[in-house]
């Protein structure tokens, strides 16, 4: 099968039902995408699939065939930081950091669909992303800050 990850095309031979999560991590060595639960309960594996935030543990390889996959490694493009990543650094969000790639990709997608989200909207869209370290107050602040930065261009 063919898979495009962060702009690079790959040719792979995997079972059609292998979750994209494990294709990325174990077959392609793209380890920014994390395993947390395997059952769509934590969001650690969040990637963008053709621009949509998705749980990579729930996407069979066959369903990703031909799609554009964006992971944390490709967000911002090259060495540049995405506005969400910059806000994350400014707010000093991460503790252990394990959830943060998923949080950031989920937040980046939220801001694409809603440039000035309310707290309620943030709660709704971000509640699938667990942070066991409890960085939620800073995630919320960082999303507002990133939204403002993006609006100002």
């Amino acid at each position, binding site marked *: 099968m063919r898979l495009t990850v962060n702009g690079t095309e790959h040719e792979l031979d995997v*079972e059609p039902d*292998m*979750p994209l*999560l*494990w294709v990325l*991590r*174990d*077959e392609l*060595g793209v*380890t*920014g*995408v*994390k*395993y*947390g*639960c*395997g*059952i769509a*309960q*934590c969001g*650690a594996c969040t990637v963008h699939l053709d621009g949509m935030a998705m749980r990579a543990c729930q996407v069979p390889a066959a369903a990703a065939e031909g799609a554009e996959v964006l*992971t*944390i*490694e490709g967000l*911002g493009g090259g060495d540049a*930081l995405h506005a969400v*990543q910059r806000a*994350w*650094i400014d707010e*000093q*969000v*991460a*503790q*252990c*950091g*394990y*959830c*943060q*790639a998923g949080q*950031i990709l989920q937040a980046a997608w939220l801001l694409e669909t809603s440039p000035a989200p309310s707290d309620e909207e*943030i*709660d*709704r869209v*971000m*509640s*699938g*992303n*667990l*942070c*066991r*370290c*409890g*960085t*939620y*107050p*800073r*995630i*919320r602040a960082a999303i507002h800050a990133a939204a403002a930065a993006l609006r100002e261009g």
Partner: protein
Amino acid sequence: MTRAATITRRTLLIGATAIAGGVAFGAWAVRHPHDNPLAEGLGAGEASFNPWVKVTGAGITLITPHADLGQGAVHMQAALIAEEMDLEFGQFDTAFGPPDPAYYNRAMAAEAGAAMAALTPISAAMAEAVAGGAMKLFGVQGTGGSTSAPDSFDKLREAGAVARETLKRAAEELTGVSAAEMTTEAGRVILPDGRALPYTDLAAVAAEVAPVRDVVLRPSSEWRLIGRPMARIDMADKVTGRQVYGIDLAPEGMLHAAVRTSPRRGEVLSYDASAAAGMRGVQDVIAVTGGVAVLADNTWRAFRALDAVEIAWGPAAYPAEQAEHWEAVGASFTDARMDAEWRADGDAAAALSAGADVAAEYRAPYVAHQPLEPLNAVVLVTEPRVEVWTAHQLPRFLQQRVAGVTGHDAEQVVLHNQFAGGSFGHRLEFEHVTLAAEIANARRGTPVKLTYSREQDFATDFPRHIAMARGRGAVADGHVTAIDIDVAGAPVTASQMGRIGLGGAGPDTQLPAGVWNAPYGPEHFRVRSYAVPGLAPVSSWRSVGASCGGFFIETLMDELCHAAGADPVEERLRLMTDPVARGVLEAAAEMAGWGRDPGEDRGLGVALVESFGVPVAEIVEVTATEGGIRIDAVWVASDSGTVIDPVNIENHIQGAVVWGLGHAMNSEITYRDGMAEQSNYHAAEGMRMHQCPRISVRTLEAAPRIRGIGEPPVPPAAPALGNAIFAATGQRLREMPFRRHVRFV
């Protein structure tokens, strides 16, 4: 005190030694007391050296003795060295220290001793036994008990100062200019004429000169870094996906392993691997201690093949049903089971002989740790040594355990400690590492990565201990006059130490934690604890005993204040015996605007708990809405002495509050047929974003000593929330998780 006496007392000496290409500054650990171990010419094996700073021509590396579990240890410890050494961020790399006794955790040992010394009703022998237990566990390079900051605070700054002064001496050697006339700045020694010599250029000479150990630490007024917000050095990697965790490692030729061990912690009766053996990518299916492992070329293939193995499990050694666990706890408030009487102020029994104004029973369930990075370890076993890549809080014990599996000596086990995706006490345990070693030992020469599935992780998590309290109290003339509280539970210290092979001597200090040391002095105050044998094995869970004890005593206190008709903050202040604790309670009350009328269907609740020497006060505000209880805001005031980084500490306190609230609301482990009923986050989710309130933090610095903050904000969260719900609804919550009794939005 003379220098010699100092050395003998702490058997730790900051010094230097030559290394390839330069010099290392760090600590000499001496196995026997010596007047001056560096001067005496020690025999082989009598001393060992561990570097905290390495300077070579190629660069500077700062070593982190403690594990980084997300608390920012790497950053904080580098900052302490950089403060005295005049280094800027970006001028050095960091690395984890290998296991060695020189990374002796001073704070843990002192903590245990000091805590016990404060206990008047306890005999000196008993205090020593208990302190000794804690030292055995954490004394050697352990990360736990919120000790990273206090342990590092002096000795890493000392190492930085020794490095700085020695580098100046090297510059003196090189230029003939007196070191006294030099200054240091941004990784360079500055000569009086303005010339600047980079430390890296001085490394070779510094290895030759006698280390300058007579250093004076800078006063706080001269600090450049400590006390100011710093950008954590691991932050950029953690937002770009570049941070590598143990689970991400993939050395050349590695095999992936998955394991299922008994969810009842018993034996494997039989298993059938015929369906799994032929599955794609599967290399082997092998029996391991208490379970079955699959080796494959990909994690998912290993997981999937393991699912196809049919295993029959033997029975559990503890009660099969949760109700039986509670029955055992409830039946343990007896003289025979009494562990210790921790406090006996006045005569509580006599004061309550005519009857109590409040009598209630409180419960705290088993709770899983479940940090987001599942347990994992990479192990490579070869003839001369065993290499282990994992994140672990007890490196020295890990070496011993792994050596026991593979038949090597502990010294042959090389641990490459990793950044952890959280721990909360989970990475104090060894099973996942010894299982990885067992599997890798069957494949010598091939690196093997064992990754726990979340289900395996839940099933074999040694949870927070279960505990129950029976409290009684009396009130008179609008005040609380007597408190009598008994706590019974699974003895966590004995359970954990037993697995390490250390016998737990004396009473379990964690059972009454947060209760016996409550900073209140009512006329009559008695605290007793009871150890319940035969329950499920348990482990340290963020804030350990105080996570139960704080809930018990602070809910009882609230009930008593209510019975007395007293204001919960004012009455606590009236009973207060500790000025530092008074400070935090007054601060939290002021932040929350305590005393205001919160309005219809709203309530404020307060709690104050002291754990690990740090008092933390929290006030929670809730609203009872149509859809359930909503937590609106939390105000937190803490005092752990000097604040190293105000932003990092705020983040940690907020996280600890989220931890405390989330688990009090939503999480428990219950046993059925000898197995944990909760298998993944859907059944034990802690807190999610939509339940997270605004959390305002104030950190006071009146405490005389710096202490860690990772755990102390956890215990007050549950009782403050329960007390707030009572204030809003009149419903008293005496059992966690609260969602058994109320609905949350």
